[in-house]
């Protein structure tokens, strides 16, 4: 399997996932079911993680087919623009959904009567609707690339996709050409995000694994939003690097492995934010965490360290 294949395999997931999540959210609002609402949030958060490799593999797919006579580069550019906007909207939806899950997992009096935040639900709903529209455009323009049978004659290019393509060009200009200091500053921010993420998540992990047993687990979980803030900083700065110099990264096997590591580690982080793992909160001072918790904590620590190591080695994996 190569990257274009991966792109085709994964790219339907964010579209289907967005509509599934949206359906669940509407159902949750109608039935006032907290369980369905959490399920909807989990779907959105997972989709936000899963769409990262979808976006990144797109450049490789474009590279592979752009020399084919039946493929027009303008159609690919339009798709890339729509994809950027859909990606951004889905990431915001995912972050809001994560905040919703966080609220559920933190509520001391969790019960069927628990009233979750309406503001978060509305935020998720609005951004999910925007995402649904944008993934539809991204999917349509993507389909146009290789399926000339579905292209309608004389159809105007999507204005949304054109806007996205302009944004893409703007970001690339800002990161690479605007000033020689933009890239270094983004790198510094990427390291600060790394420190926030590893400092908080690994401390919680170490406690669950059995170090620093004097500390209770529940308050350590309150540090997690800072780690998630670090992750958000790094996803944003990381994507700016990628958009700035895509061909430094696309065919870079070390970068590909780093992304795989991030997807796995971020999924474990999501696990920490779901209410099903609230029972770990009962692990007080000098208590032993359950074996499954220790396994997750150990995996998370190893994965984040591997991600840092691979990140540092990216220049060595770049194609010549």
């Amino acid at each position, binding site marked *: 399997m190569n990257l274009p294949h991966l792109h085709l395999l994964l790219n339907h997931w964010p579209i289907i996932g967005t509509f599934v999540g949206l359906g669940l959210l509407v159902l949750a609002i109608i039935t006032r079911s907290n369980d369905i609402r959490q399920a909807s949030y989990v779907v959105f958060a997972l989709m936000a993680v899963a769409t990262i490799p979808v976006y990144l593999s797109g450049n490789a797919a474009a590279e592979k087919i752009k020399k084919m006579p039946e493929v027009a580069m303008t159609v690919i550019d339009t798709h890339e623009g729509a994809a950027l906007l859909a990606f951004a909207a889905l990431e915001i939806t995912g972050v809001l959904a994560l905040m919703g899950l966080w609220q559920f997992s933190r509520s001391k009096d969790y019960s069927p009567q628990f009233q979750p935040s309406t503001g978060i639900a509305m935020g998720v709903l609005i951004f999910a609707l925007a995402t649904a529209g944008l993934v539809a455009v991204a999917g349509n323009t993507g389909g146009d690339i290789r399926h000339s049978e579905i292209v309608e004659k004389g159809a105007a290019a999507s204005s949304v996709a054109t806007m996205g393509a302009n944004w893409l060009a703007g970001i690339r200009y800002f990161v690479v050409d605007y000033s*020689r*200091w933009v*890239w*270094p*500053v983004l*790198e*510094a921010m990427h*390291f*600060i995000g*790394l*420190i*926030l993420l*590893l*400092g*908080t998540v*690994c*401390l919680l992990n170490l406690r669950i694994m059995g170090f*620093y047993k*004097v*500390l*209770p687990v*529940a*308050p*350590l979980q*309150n*540090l997690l939003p*800072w780690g998630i803030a670090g992750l958000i900083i790094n996803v944003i700065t990381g994507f700016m690097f990628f958009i700035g110099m895509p061909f430094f990264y696309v065919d870079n096997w070390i970068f590909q492995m780093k992304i795989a590591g991030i997807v796995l580690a971020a999924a474990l982080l999501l696990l920490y934010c779901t209410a099903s793992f609230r029972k770990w909160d009962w692990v007080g*001072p000098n208590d032993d965490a359950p074996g499954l918790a220790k396994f997750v904590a150990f995996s998370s620590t190893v994965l984040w*360290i591997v991600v*840092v*190591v691979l990140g*540092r*080695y990216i*220049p*060595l994996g770049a194609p010549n």
Partner: protein
Amino acid sequence: MEIPHFFQTIEESGISNWVRDNPFWAILTIHALGMAMLVGASTVIDLRLLGIAPNLPIAPLRRLYGVIWAGFWIQVVSGLLLLIGYPTKSFTNFDFYIKLILIAFGMVAMVMLKKRVFSDPNMSEPDMMAKGRSLAIWSLVFWLGAVTSARMLAYTYTYISYPY
């Protein structure tokens, strides 16, 4: 300003060549992980003293100084190796001195914080937070500056090795 000739002597030594040839990226990676330990553990202490995670007991966080010192010595050893590899590149860069000063300030802030907040086991948590507040803010500022100036080293050097 003239570049001292002994930088060239260092660069021609066996250990300097070894650093540049082989383990350079490995040392750089260890330097990044050491940074995560040193600054990550410091940041957790600082944030807690500034009021984050208010039900996390403060006194046991004293044990994080183990991580801080382990990270610090990892940085000293890996940093010295990198310095032996590229003495001219580092010492001719003004930013390098800023970085060293900020790290020194960061460490001094953490040591003072330990003395002021963690030395008296009977101190109440509100007292710990009140006494540690300004040092915690300063420490965050110093670490932010140290990490930024450190990352800038890759973009601000004039010479990569002794100019012939």
